[in-house]
């Protein structure tokens, strides 16, 4: 019995120390673990403004997307609803790219404040539904602040939190 209890204690304490260590490491390296920075990060964090490759994520602002006739040169605003950043990109954009949807762009920040992207990734949100349902929801006004339409429920379409990889709807996910 005492042996079993001792093994139990060792496993428990080991697990506790391991989780603490993991939590510390993950917190320490948070800046390299994040896949992208928000326009607010770019505006506020000095070291992000240096000339280096980085990724910026946010929502393609409604009615900001312009493309030239060649179909390859794109220009749009990426916003986290607090700050926005102008992105210039030449290349093929993914299927899910649209105004009001999430996007992650990779490239460099130019001195004039625009972002020259050489890669554009569409970020999908966590909502799955048939087309008819999406349209019915929009019509009835029950569309809860998804990034898709930009028809907000109130002034803060994406919830209180600025966009930052959290739920677009500002709704909390439950712990599983």
């Amino acid at each position, binding site marked *: 019995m005492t042996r*079993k209890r001792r*093994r*139990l204690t060792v*496993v428990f304490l*080991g*697990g506790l120390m*391991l*989780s603490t260590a*993991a939590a510390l490491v*993950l917190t320490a390296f*948070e800046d390299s*673990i*994040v*896949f*992208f*920075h*928000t326009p607010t990060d770019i505006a506020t964090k000095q070291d992000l403004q240096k000339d280096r490759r980085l990724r910026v*994520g946010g929502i393609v602002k409604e009615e900001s997307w312009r493309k030239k006739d060649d179909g390859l040169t794109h220009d749009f605003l990426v916003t986290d609803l607090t700050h926005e950043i102008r992105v210039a990109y030449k290349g*093929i*954009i*993914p*299927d*899910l*790219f649209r105004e009001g*949807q999430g996007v*992650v762009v990779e490239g460099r920040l130019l001195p004039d404040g625009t972002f020259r992207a050489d*890669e*554009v*990734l*569409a*970020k*999908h*949100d*966590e*909502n*799955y*539904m*048939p*087309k*008819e*349902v*999406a*349209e019915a929801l929009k019509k009835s006004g029950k569309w*809860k602040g998804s990034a*898709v339409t930009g028809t907000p429920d109130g002034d803060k379409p994406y919830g209180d939190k600025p966009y*930052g*990889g*959290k*739920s677009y*709807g500002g*709704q*909390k*996910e*439950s*712990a*599983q």
Partner: protein
Amino acid sequence: MLHRFANPTRFLRLANAVLPWATSLTVILIGAGLYFAFGASPADYQQGETVRIMYVHVPSAWMAMFAYAFIAVASAVGLIWKHPVAHVCALAAAPIGACFTVICLTTGSLWGKPMWGTWWVWDARLTSVLVLFFLYLGFIALANAFDDAARGEKASAILALVGAVNLPIIKFSVDWWNTLHQPASVTKIGMPAVHSSMLIPLLLMAVGFTMLFVVLVIVRARAELADRRINALRSARIHAETAQSGA
């Protein structure tokens, strides 16, 4: 409760009683899941038909994590209470979990190319799932690395417990950090993020995969127990022969 199944005889009796039920449930649920996934569910308003990849990707991802949690719990029980069946179950589950992880990663990649515009990115979710795959490989390798089976069991059980720290990281990576991968849909509170017509095939496949996991764990555990018994018989025979020649 646990002590009841620590005995291989009792374990096998229970496992063999469960096996036919689990097998028929697997066939029925996955069959129904496939019907809904391809026939009776609509295209998504954003992704179109590509949403049908979700019905194999998401259940595989759940199984990849569930199988690892199963291995971690079995390893803890094996280490602390020394139940012989616990290690057998952990060992049986490892290749199954590794296969589901492979399915999760490849189908995710096949979804990512048309939807995100890339096969792979090193974001927190994708990277932590890749780490999970290597943990599975490490567990299997370590369990078979020693001549002394008991040592392999102990070493692999410790690895399984250490690696369990990765599970919450996978689950919450999409909430803790900015990732390209979307956050959880099914466990979201509030407005259902997945419409019921798409939730049906998703859940059918998920429960079907769980039943398949049960079937495969039983089948593999039986093979492992028989294998151990064979080895025990062989060494007993060698002992008997050497004793005879000595006398």
